[in-house]
């Protein structure tokens, strides 16, 4: 059995199913992100692991022990909240030591552990300050140290970076990941920010309306999205409808233009409609000698996005975006001009659902 096992968990509020038949096994030391839009059930699932919500059905096992019905203070699970949730009447040290104090550990043990945690988050100079005297980033680091001081079996992070500004967010997520790796602690990170999830996680669970859409490494989720939802939610994507020409050889046709996929199209027959997707950065201008997946279109718009230039084209009856790196020697077509672009067979993804 996995270290943390969420088995057939469903949560209903009245008639509304918020989490539907959720199954996930997490290994010890793994960093897993729950990614999805607001209301997809990711926080509810996390709160069920923490014990703040009871599943309507299903079970949760931690290190082989069924913790489904245990109260939050009987689970050795640490949680970090979006709003930091530091106790305003306590200093940094007292906040970090709170969990150890209520568990009635010896004073010198508490002192030693608190000092260790304060060093871990590099707030030695702020140890005697109250939360209102700290910045948002510092408060969230204290919150992290407070959760870790109890040496929890699992660390739960409920959108911990959402309230912070962009720069702090990037540096703090790296810090969280580094600390998690150095301690080897199992962590679940809830976020609606795809970049955050992609950059920090060992595995990502993409959720939508209470269901798991796809579970995989960041590489798999980004490059091989299985459903239209995942493809659209993670990164930007061109999607269009096509007809299957030759399922065995993975051949499609869209408005008379032929597209070749890398593998055969399973479960479809000739003439079936499918949705396919191509990431904008997978397109390139046609090099000489290229024969497959040649697409001719008309340039509609060109947008500079800093390091990337986005070229919008009309291909057949669909609009496609192509991203190319911005460099001084870049030669761009003009708006209204016709141009040919191409992509590899691996870039053409057939989507389910």
């Amino acid at each position, binding site marked *: 059995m996995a270290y943390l096992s969420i088995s057939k968990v469903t949560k209903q509020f009245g008639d509304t199913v918020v989490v539907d038949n959720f199954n996930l096994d997490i290994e010890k030391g793994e960093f897993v992100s729950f990614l999805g839009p607001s209301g997809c059930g990711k926080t509810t699932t996390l709160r069920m692991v923490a014990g703040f919500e009871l599943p309507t059905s299903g079970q949760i096992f931690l290190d082989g022990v069924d913790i489904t019905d245990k109260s939050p*203070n009987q689970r050795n699970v*640490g*949680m970090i*909240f979006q709003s930091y949730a*530091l*106790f305003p009447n306590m200093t940094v040290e007292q906040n970090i030591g709170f969990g150890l104090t209520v568990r009635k550990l010896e004073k010198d043990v508490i002192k030693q552990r608190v000092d260790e945690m304060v060093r871990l988050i590099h707030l030695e100079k702020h140890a005697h300050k109250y939360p209102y005297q700290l910045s948002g980033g510092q408060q969230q680091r204290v919150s992290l140290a407070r959760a870790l001081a109890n040496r929890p079996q699992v660390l739960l992070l409920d959108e911990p970076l959402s309230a912070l500004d962009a720069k702090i967010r990037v540096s703090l997520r790296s810090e969280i990941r580094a600390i998690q790796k150095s301690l080897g602690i199992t962590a679940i990170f809830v976020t609606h920010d795809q970049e955050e999830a992609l950059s920090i996680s060992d595995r990502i669970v993409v959720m939508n309306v209470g269901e798991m859409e796809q579970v995989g490494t960041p590489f798999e989720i980004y490059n091989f999205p299985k459903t239209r939802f995942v493809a659209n939610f993670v990164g930007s994507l061109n999607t269009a409808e096509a007809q299957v020409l030759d399922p065995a050889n993975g051949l499609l046709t869209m408005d008379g233009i032929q597209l070749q996929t890398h593998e055969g199209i399973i479960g479809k027959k000739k003439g079936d409609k499918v949705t396919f997707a191509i990431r904008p950065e997978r397109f390139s201008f046609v090099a000489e000698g290229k024969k497959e997946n040649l697409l001719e279109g008309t340039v509609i718009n060109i947008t500079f996005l800093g390091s990337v230039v986005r070229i919008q084209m009309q291909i057949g009856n669909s609009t496609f975006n192509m991203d190319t790196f911005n460099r001084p020697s870049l030669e761009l077509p003009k708006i209204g001009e016709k141009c040919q672009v191409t992509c590899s067979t691996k870039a053409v993804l057939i989507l389910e659902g």
Partner: protein
Amino acid sequence: MAQTAITPQGKIYPPTNWKTWLGVAPFFIFAILFLFLPSLRLFTASFTDPEGNFTLNNIIQLFSEKYIVDAYKLSIQISAVTALGGGILGFLLAYSVTVGGLPKSLRSILITFSGVASNFAGVPLAFAFVATIGRQGFMTHILRDYFGMDIYEAGFNLYSFAGLSLVYMYFQFPLMVLIMAPALDGLKKEWREAAENLGASTAQYWLKVAMPVLLPSILGAMILLFGNAFGAYATAYALTGGRIGVVTIQIGAQIRGDVLYNPGLGYAMAIGMVVIMAISLAGYSWLQAKTERWLK
């Protein structure tokens, strides 16, 4: 020429226009006419004898005359008892309708009632209690005739210390509800969850997190209740007709009394009240500032 002000945080404020002051002018005029000038008159008159000569005798009598010292003691006792009783009752009610989880409709009913009741004092309040639990009161009759309980036979007397305290409680606990409900709303759900998550029991959460956060507000509110009762005059006078000699009644007797007539002493007693009220309000402000600092 007025200059733009830049705060240490870098915020820029435009120069203050004299027209801006017009908006607050009525308040200042009102305060000068009906607060500062009367206070000044009170202060100077407390050092004046009936013939208009300077004297320290009025101030000395505040500490030497037994009936004056007793009046202060009585006022402090009634104020303390009703602040404590009203404070506890008000806190429990506010708790029930905020974090206690009672229906929201009950909360709006209680808050509306508290808004009205906290301002219901003086002659109408005294009459309401005389009409309900006075010797011939409606409830007194019902209890005696239908339940065989004669509360006056049992020792209760509306026109006593206990009776006056009971009447004061009617406007004390609603004031506590009004002050404590927002303070209890300020307790974040996440604090409780964080405490539980760290292994704390409900009792540990209340003892180590919620009560320390609330305590300045509770104590501050009780100080306000104390001041509220300490300054009450009409209710006590209308109910007891001067039989219970709280400070406010004694001041009235000195300023417009037939038997006791020494306005200078009355003013000196009023100065004593101002000092006690000022200490109470300073304590309230200090405790409020402490809570606000934590919660900002």
